[in-house]
């Protein structure tokens, strides 16, 4: 049994960003379920939208105070003048690790079985450095920056995660045969950290081969650690084979703060139809908020929430369209609440 310290049950404040598109719908689902199970959290809500130039300071202040945030997607305009707020948030708060858990949900049939992959992705540098310029008309350069510091800390996080969660293997994903210096430095850092965890197997895989292996033999992977862009692709591929964006939980974490969001395509805001019909799948964000409850040291609430969600999925009566069903978000939420024990 879990023996809390006195006072551990005091409700904790969590910053809530409903976001754009389907964001309010799925964060709303979380609010309802949290309330139904009397979880010791309360939300401080902020309106943030993808078309803002910057994340408002009060939002950052709130997250810094609360340390924990739950958020829906923020739309990223393609090729426009503003930079992605999802990326800004990660950078401002130095949430250097992104974690996505891709696994087969019991009862949900997909093309692949035995998938249980955790992608730990470096979140602050690499191809997302945002350093780009036009050299002469018609020639543009983009800088990918890899540092020892960031590579080491993400490697440490991945191994620590593996150690704490009884995972057996960490796979580093790279393209060091081409980017010898940049990805080479990343690998070098991973290897160094690996020597400190003799109990955890370490191997390396080239990113293209990795994607191929993911679609053919995903069961071979356990924890994966990646630079920024590869992590994005690997996580989406892994999410795709195990059921899709709508069910994979994830979060971003740094030394001091954490933001929980839909794991893959966190920037996804769904399409018009999903919004109009109110049929977004709340499962990903519900599972993410279970991760959040664990992060807040409320493991029993996390377990209850997770169990209820899994049961609803495996019973198969209430599923949204992306899982082959016809339910609305609210019907799934009601089912989860009814299943809570």
């Amino acid at each position, binding site marked *: 049994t879990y023996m809390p310290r006195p006072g551990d049950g005091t409700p904790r404040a969590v910053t809530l960003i409903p976001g754009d598109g389907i964001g309010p719908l799925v964060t709303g689902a979380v609010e309802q379920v949290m309330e139904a199970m009397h979880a010791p959290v309360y939300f401080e809500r902020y309106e943030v939208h993808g078309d803002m130039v910057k994340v408002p300071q009060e939002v950052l202040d709130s997250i810094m105070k609360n340390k924990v945030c739950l958020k829906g997607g923020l739309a990223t*305009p393609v090729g426009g003048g503003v930079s992605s707020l999802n990326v800004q948030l990660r950078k401002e708060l130095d949430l250097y690790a992104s974690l996505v858990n891709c696994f087969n949900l019991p009862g949900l049939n997909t093309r692949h079985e035995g998938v249980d992959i955790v992608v730990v992705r470096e979140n602050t540098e690499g191809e997302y450095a945002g350093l780009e310029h036009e050299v002469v008309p018609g020639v543009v350069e983009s800088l990918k920056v890899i540092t020892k510091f960031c590579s080491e800390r993400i490697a440490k996080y991945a191994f620590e995660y593996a150690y704490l969660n009884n995972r057996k293997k960490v796979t580093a994903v790279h393209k060091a045969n081409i980017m010898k210096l940049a990805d080479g430095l990343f690998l070098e850092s991973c290897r160094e950290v690996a020597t400190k965890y003799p109990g955890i197997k370490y191997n390396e895989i080239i990113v293209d081969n990795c994607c191929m292996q993911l679609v053919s033999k995903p069961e071979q992977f356990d924890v994966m650690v990646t630079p920024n862009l590869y992590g994005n692709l690997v996580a989406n591929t892994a999410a795709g084979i195990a059921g899709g964006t709508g069910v994979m939980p994830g979060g971003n974490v740094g030394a001091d703060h954490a933001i929980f969001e839909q794991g893959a395509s966190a920037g996804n805001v769904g399409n018009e139809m999903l919004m109009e019909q109110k049929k977004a799948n709340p499962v990903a964000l519900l599972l993410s908020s279970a991760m959040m409850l664990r992060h807040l040291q409320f493991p029993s609430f996390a377990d209850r929430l997770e169990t209820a969600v899994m049961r609803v999925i495996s019973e198969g009566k209430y599923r949204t369209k992306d899982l082959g069903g016809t339910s609305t978000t609210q019907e799934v939420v009601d089912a989860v609440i009814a299943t809570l024990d």
Partner: protein
Amino acid sequence: ILRNYLCSMSPIQATMFPGDGIGPEIAESVKKVLNTAQVPIQWEEHFVGDKVDPRTQSFLTWESLESVRTNRVGLKGPMATPIGKGHRSLNLTLRKELGLYANVRPCYSLSGFKTRYDDVNLVTIRENTEGEYSGLEHQVVRGVVESLKIITRTASLRVAEYAFHYARTEGREKVSAIHKANIMRKTDGLFLTCCREVAEKYPDIKYEEVIIDNCCMMLVKNPALFDVLVMPNLYGDIISDLCAGLVGGLGLTPSCNIGEGGIALAEAVHGSAPDIAGKNLANPTALLLSAVMMLRHLKLHDKAEQIHNAITKTIAEGKYRTADLGGTSTTTDFTKAICDNL
């Protein structure tokens, strides 16, 4: 008439690089099958040297490159780049020197070989000369390195043009440009601008843009959504391997490099597979299908069709399959079975 007759009799010269690792074994298989099918091709074989040729700065000799330039068509096995400094990678040398700007990788479910996906029929077209593969990297200070990704208008237009041209001539309906312009606004942004410009000239071909991470997800959920995909170098590398995974692995997927002035250098997508090299275990299908692409390029459609059918028939029969397809056949037995099915 006499001229035509002579032409059809005198064989076409084509360059062949057997390459490293499993290369010689699968190249042997190709020669055997094409021979049996009486394809009028005469191979000019070239090997990778053991010294750096100063004219190419790599282990590939100038003569080898000249051979491709003259013949304008060739087939290449995988080439592993020997580790060490002071020379260029072999594949890079070929690409740069021959201006191989587009890499065409058709990916389709082979009838008769069941995978988890049986509705794949798409073609990835990868920009081959720049992007993340510029090779420009440096250490800024200790512990900080930068790697440059270069996107140019010229190269982007050229590959986009090829993609649409390909779509039209192959009777395909849609071209999807794959990018990450929400993050790399300027580089991938330029790539998209170029694709859009070219798309305007091809109103009969549908055009769409898909963010690469979403593309990965869509591909594994429903690959039938795609037709022709065009993309910068690194994305092409990753996506084409992912697609290979959908249809049964690297042993099956061919490709063809298109170069300046219409050079075509066909090659398998896979590498030298050092783990199985020299063991008579390699699946020659990828290189065979690459040779088929080469034959189509040479307008030898009947031969191409004949060989293609023999391959699919052999795999579908299931009696002879290599280990990567779950069988126990050797490369030679599988090759023989294909020859018998011609």
